[in-house]
């Protein structure tokens, strides 16, 4: 056997070697930026140097031909440098403003939308879904493609009261993230247990420990060690599935999509917030998920019409109150919107503050 090659444990690479030279030169010395048009940013350094950024949407899961095409465009217009954002947009930086419009044209001609800056709806951050996840209830790349087709105009324009960040997740573990609008696959039935496999595959005590509501306990089933679920207690979170795949949580019929709103990680104005449930029970309807798009577009249109400048989704709802949010969006308020998990008291209205 050939000798194995030990890895070079270099860790996170130094970005300076890949960064646009104007950014290297002015590292830590920026003084100003503005937003000449959707998808375009202009940053000025203390010494007067300028760099223009053109932001384009991508499909995130990219084939090498797409990446090489994006590289060709970077070589021609952007001195061979790009960067990616946390939401999988690609950014081209150019120091010559004369190159901005030709760069935009080249990207548009090749099918890449320009936008995602300031008060637009940016690219949806997402998970792996059917393409690569081992516990997906739905796809992610497909949901995002379908939704971004619907929200295309909101990406290339800046017509929202403030920025809108969206995410999708293919199960309740929610790797997709917190967002102004989050679309999350939700299990609605307890796991189906294949008792023949549990003893061989699962470390039973760790599965029991994983359950957040103590609904799982060891049991003998057909004379074999297995696990049982108290289905009345079970909240269908799916936490038992990763350490014990015979506890199948995904259900092609009963797994539904839920919409959550008002999350933001920025500290601007209000403190960071988590998104909150507003709609559940939407069908997992591949390949276009039209029912999800209807709800998302409705929420966005009400927010767009009603929020004041600079109000994020959370700021807007905070001003008008949740009853008005449900009223204005026409979405039904149900008993499932009232939290009953630990700490829920903090979410109840312990005041006579009521808007009429």
């Amino acid at each position, binding site marked *: 056997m050939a000798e*194995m090659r*030990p*890895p070079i444990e*270099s*860790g*996170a*690479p*130094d*970005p300076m*070697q890949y*960064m646009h030279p104007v*950014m290297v030169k002015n*590292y830590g010395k*920026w*003084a100003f930026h503005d937003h000449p048009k959707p998808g375009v940013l202009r940053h000025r350094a203390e010494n007067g140097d300028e760099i223009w950024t053109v932001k384009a*949407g991508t*499909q*995130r*899961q*990219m*084939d*090498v*031909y*797409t*990446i090489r095409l994006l*590289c060709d465009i*970077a070589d021609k217009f952007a001195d061979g*440098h*790009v*960067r*990616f*954002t*946390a939401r*999988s947009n690609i950014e081209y930086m150019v120091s010559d403003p004369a190159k901005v419009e030709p760069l935009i044209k080249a990207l548009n001609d090749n*099918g890449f*939308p320009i936008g995602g800056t300031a008060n637009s709806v940016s690219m949806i951050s997402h998970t792996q879904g*059917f*393409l690569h*996840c081992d516990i997906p209830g*739905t*796809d992610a790349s497909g949901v995002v*493609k379908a939704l971004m*087709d619907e929200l*295309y105009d909101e990406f290339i324009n800046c017509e929202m009261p403030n920025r809108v960040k969206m995410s999708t997740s293919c199960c309740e*573990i*929610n*790797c*997709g993230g917190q967002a102004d609008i989050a679309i999350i696959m939700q299990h609605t039935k307890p796991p189906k247990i294949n008792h023949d496999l549990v003893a061989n595959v699962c470390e039973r005590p760790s599965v029991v*420990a994983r359950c*957040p509501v103590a609904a799982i306990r060891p049991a003998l089933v057909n004379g074999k060690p297995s696990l049982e679920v108290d289905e009345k207690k079970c909240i269908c979170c799916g*936490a038992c599935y990763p350490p014990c795949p015979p506890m199948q949580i995904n259900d*092609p019929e009963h797994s539904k999509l839920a919409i959550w709103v008002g999350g933001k*990680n*920025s*500290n*601007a104005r209000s403190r960071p917030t988590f998104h909150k449930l507003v709609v559940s029970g939407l069908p997992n309807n*591949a390949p276009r998920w039209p029912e999800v798009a209807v709800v998302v577009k409705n929420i966005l249109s009400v927010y767009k019409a009603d929020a*004041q*400048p600079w109000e994020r989704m959370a700021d807007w709802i905070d001003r008008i109150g949740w009853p008005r949010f449900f009223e204005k969006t026409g979405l039904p308020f149900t008993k499932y919107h009232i939290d009953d998990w*630990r700490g829920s008291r903090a979410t109840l209205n312990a005041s006579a503050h009521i808007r009429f």
Partner: protein
Amino acid sequence: MAKKMHDTPMLDQLESGPWPSFVTGLKRLAKDNDMMVDLMGQLETSYRNTKGYWKGGTVGVFGYGGGVIPRFTELKDENEKPVFPAAAEFHTLRIQPPAGMHYNTDILRKFCDTWEKHGSGLIAFHGQSGDIMFQGVTTANVQPAFDELNEMGFDMGGAGPALRTSMSCVGAARCEMSNYDEAKALRTVINSNIDDMHRPALPYKFKFKFSGCANDCVNAIQRSDMAVIGTWRDNIRVNEALAKDYMAHHGMEKLVNDVISRCPTKALSLKNTSDVSKADGFCSVAVTDTQSLEIDNHNCVRCMHCLNVMPGALLPGMDKGATILVGGKSVLKIGATMGTVVIPFMKLESEEDFEALSELSRNILDFFAENALEHERTGEMIDRIGLVNFLEGVGLDIDANMILEPRSNPYARMDGWDEEVAKAEERKKKAAG
């Protein structure tokens, strides 16, 4: 020559519409890559049956214990043979990106060549923890693909119960809001703890994230166990020319409604320039010939709103550093938790400052490794043991900035009160120098 394409009527529908389509990309790859032909077959089956068909396993590279996400197909025929054999193994290599996710086309083309040769040709920029996801490779090709990427200067990211790949915002590279060298902080912390990434031995995952200001563009506060968020201690800096520019373009109504009245702590006010306060902590900038925007900096919470609305006119102060928050995480298993302040301000300028950050990261990782239960995140551990025990465990002083309000429940033993009062006085004396 690749094998014949499967019928994919559902995926085909995702080729229409204006947004770039990943399906078109998959089809391009499938033209001369059997793995992608069969990957599309399995994906179409998932779409048709609304079911996923991947299971995990153990695949790695020599010398490391993690970083490869193994995927084996579960879609088998009656003889237990894969229905789509060329995609029966479809692993992902998680590779750490440069801080700030900067690339030149030379390195991107090299990535493409390597992944075309050894893998599927499908790359995601980036996963939610920041990894470059080289998606789709057989077990046999994992090692040669990684070797090539590693020789290019790229290292494996994290997976499993380990230190995870990190992210930093664009920060100092292109943003006037940056309060420290985010890339340096990321590389200092990650690269000095790299053994915990490559050899998973922690109770569960641990993430660091680095944002240059409280706008928190990489979502450090919600999605990292230790968040380093840039801030400053002195007065907001002002630029009168740009402030007047803002007024010329937006006018008084917007200054009042969008800037002043949206300040969460009412630290902003409009004053006649002759009346602006010269007291400690106050600063101001003229916006017209007679009027100024006045800022009460002691009452400013560095939320970033006014700086966002008036970029360049208002800037972070000169005394910069970071707030450190611990315990942010996603939902499993107690629900999502936000990071909690454990150090209100940490200077991040000198080599010693970065050394102190590195030491802090090591202390917190060590405490987590020794005290968390299996599959427990740092936020959950703190929930279980209480913040004070955590602070004492890692050797940090308490601070009133760590809470929104003091306890309102009386169920606590407080017989150590006098000793704690003495400690508080001691801290006060120390702070006063």
